[in-house]
């Protein structure tokens, strides 16, 4: 054996060093013991020990969402891998670049129903961008290189590398490839110039142009190019749940979020526009509702997306532009400045129409003297943090309220599970975000149902001194389930009421954190101010806000209905 040969486990670690990985989120177990032994003997990245593998993947996912870098998780075989699946599927649905390394039983035991064996590549195949089973120590470095490349290029996504235990013990020389080429994988970066020209001319000649921006703008780090372009053409803009922060919410051109719980003005403008530019968005069911209803109004649709399969999937596109959003938007901006195309048509009339929709003030709500309104809590959170916090959320009513009442002016500040809608992500998302931004304010807006799905991570937060502020909107219901049961199931609240809730203050304290219970509207602001005060700067604070049980999220487009068929609070 050559003297410069190192173990497969050490090769794994060296690859992660080459990729300049700062954090690995994981949980040890039999099949990854060799790798963990190598983790122990290095100090270039920090290993974050979670309390459940699902949280490892979520935390790595949030690290990526909040930084743009590839998130890395390390789990063992069998249950370690199956526990990771929810996290992987969550990242896949939102196109988050991640590399998940899973241990596998030794190659000679594969297929023997060995202890902690499962077909990890088989189980994860439908929810990864790609996955690999490494069968030879010689292939570890090139496979991990490919994994990082595939995860972070094109339309990003999670990539899993499954490594049998014996492979991590065998020795080989370490040689990390400088570059990687896959003949079967060549993402298109540059948009078609003819299509881009056509798109610009359509937009400039539109009477009612509209921009619809999605998660692709955030993931593609294209928000400054988008902002420049939208301001230059003066058109109104809306954003999907995943795209929030891609364009500053405080700008007067911004109409708020669209979709099932979008604003009245955003949904109406989307329906009534004559030229629509979709940027890094995918016309999904929660955004446009019923596609037939959407298409009942004639309009020309331009769609910029890096993934050709996103184009004309649910809605037929007139001008498809396949390319990286930043590249296409840069071309649009260049074209706009070079050709000195003047805006011919005034958008005054269009904005007049929009202002009428705006005047419905669809997000207004009545504060109460006795009951805490959840919207008020989020508004106050925005005010106390001066809009400068990273906000993670779980899934449900609180998620929608956070999206509606915490306007984001910057990208990568709003961390939530939009596609898969995974309850339980909020706390691990806050962990990954806080580790990536140790000096930033990180708040997890959650509910008493969601938070309990990964509550064990309070222990991880203690170990790593993460001063997360948990804003628990506690209405003693699975709020969104209850809302649907109220609207569509005759108030039959089947299994949506949470009996036997824990005392969250004591629970937080048991984990070594600070707990607060807030029951009066007048205590909301003082509690939030205290939580974000210097005194508690180093501490995790669990704020249990006892909120109005019957509050609903408005506006709402009922399932299967169209954009202009919203129910507002006043309709009921």
């Amino acid at each position, binding site marked *: 054996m050559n003297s410069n040969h190192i173990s497969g486990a050490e090769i794994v670690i060296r690859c992660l060093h080459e990729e300049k990985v700062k954090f690995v989120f994981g949980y040890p177990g039999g099949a990854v013991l060799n790798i963990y032994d190598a983790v122990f003997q290095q100090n270039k990245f920090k290993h974050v020990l979670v309390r459940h593998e699902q949280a490892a993947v979520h935390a790595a996912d949030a690290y990526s969402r909040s930084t743009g870098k590839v998130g890395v998780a390390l789990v063992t075989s069998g249950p370690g891998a199956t526990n990771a699946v929810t996290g992987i599927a969550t990242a896949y649905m939102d196109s988050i670049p991640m590399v998940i390394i899973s241990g596998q039983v030794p190659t000679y035991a594969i297929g023997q129903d060995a202890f902690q064996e499962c077909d990890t590549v*088989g189980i994860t*195949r439908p929810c990864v961008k790609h996955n690999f*089973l490494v069968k030879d120590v010689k292939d570890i470095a090139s496979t991990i290189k490919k994994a990082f490349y*595939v995860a972070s290029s094109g339309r990003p996504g999670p990539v899993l590398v499954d490594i049998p235990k014996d492979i991590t013990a065998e020795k080989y020389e370490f040689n990390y490839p400088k570059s990687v080429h*896959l*003949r*079967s994988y060549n993402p298109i970066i540059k948009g078609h110039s003819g299509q881009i020209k056509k798109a610009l001319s359509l937009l400039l000649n539109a009477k009612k142009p509209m921009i619809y921006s999605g998660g692709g703008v955030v993931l593609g780090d294209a928000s400054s190019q988008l902002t420049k372009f939208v301001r230059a053409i003066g058109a109104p803009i809306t954003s999907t749940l995943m795209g929030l922060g891609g364009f500053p919410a405080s700008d007067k051109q911004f109409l708020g979020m669209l979709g099932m719980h979008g604003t009245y003005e955003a949904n109406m403008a989307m329906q009534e526009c004559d030229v629509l530019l979709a940027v890094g968005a995918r016309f999904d069911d929660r955004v446009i509702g019923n596609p037939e209803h959407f298409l009942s109004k004639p309009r020309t649709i331009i769609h910029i997306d890096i993934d*050709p*399969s996103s184009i*004309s999937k649910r809605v037929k596109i007139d001008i498809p532009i396949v390319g990286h959003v930043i590249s296409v938007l840069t071309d649009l901006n260049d074209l706009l400045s070079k050709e000195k195309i003047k805006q011919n048509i005034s958008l005054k009339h269009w904005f007049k129409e929009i202002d009428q929709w705006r005047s419905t003030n669809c997000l207004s709500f009545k504060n109460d003297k006795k009951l805490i309104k959840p919207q008020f809590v989020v508004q106050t959170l925005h005010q106390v943090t001066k809009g400068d916090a990273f906000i993670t959320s779980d899934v449900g009513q609180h998620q929608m309220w956070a999206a509606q009442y915490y306007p984001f002016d910057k990208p990568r500040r709003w961390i939530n599970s939009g596609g898969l809608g995974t309850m339980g992500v909020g706390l691990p998302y806050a962990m990954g975000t806080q580790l990536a931004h140790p000096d930033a304010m990180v708040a997890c807006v959650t509910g008493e149902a969601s938070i309990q799905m990964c509550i064990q991570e309070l222990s991880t937060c203690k170990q790593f001194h993460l001063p997360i502020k948990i804003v628990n909107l506690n209405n003693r219901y699975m709020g969104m389930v209850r809302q649907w049961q109220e609207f569509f199931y005759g108030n039959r609240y089947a299994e949506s009421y949470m009996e036997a809730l824990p005392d969250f203050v004591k629970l937080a304290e048991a984990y070594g954190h600070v707990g607060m219970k807030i029951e009066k509207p007048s205590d909301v602001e003082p509690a939030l101010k205290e939580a974000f005060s210097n005194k508690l700067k180093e501490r995790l604070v669990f704020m249990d806000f006892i909120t109005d049980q019957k509050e609903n999220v408005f506006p709402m487009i009922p399932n299967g209905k169209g954009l202009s068929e919203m129910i507002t609070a006043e309709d009921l």
Partner: protein
Amino acid sequence: MRHIISLLMENESGALSRVSGLFSARGYNIESLTVAPTEDASLSRMTIVTSGSDEIIEQIIKQLNKLIDVVKVLDLNDGKFIERELMIVKVKANAQYRDEMKRMCDIFRGRIIDVSDSSFTIEITGSSSKLDAYIESIDKAAILETVRTGASGIGRGDRILKV
């Protein structure tokens, strides 16, 4: 409409299940699927017979192209092509059927490749619809067993699918 899609993919374990998994996960039809290595051992060629509206076929092609292991995809129906399928069929060849089975085999330009006292084993190639026609034409009671490869296809003339 019925479409025949040809694709070249990396000859790696799991590649087949990525394709079949895509079809089941997205609810696309598969009428038949055949796969075998090509003259370049690093590549497999797969032929999938599917059906769907133009929009669905467009999505199928895009989704197939998105799979990392898939190198090239061609919808044969976009141009002229030749389609062939092999069927091996075992039929009764006792006194009652022997002459008729020989005749039908000749009419469909099949070949008898195995003979026993009571049966013929016949190979027939052609388009899938020709093989269907053969099955329709003979007495159902005479069929003992059939096995079909699923369609393979190739473009006519200069239409070439190669890396």
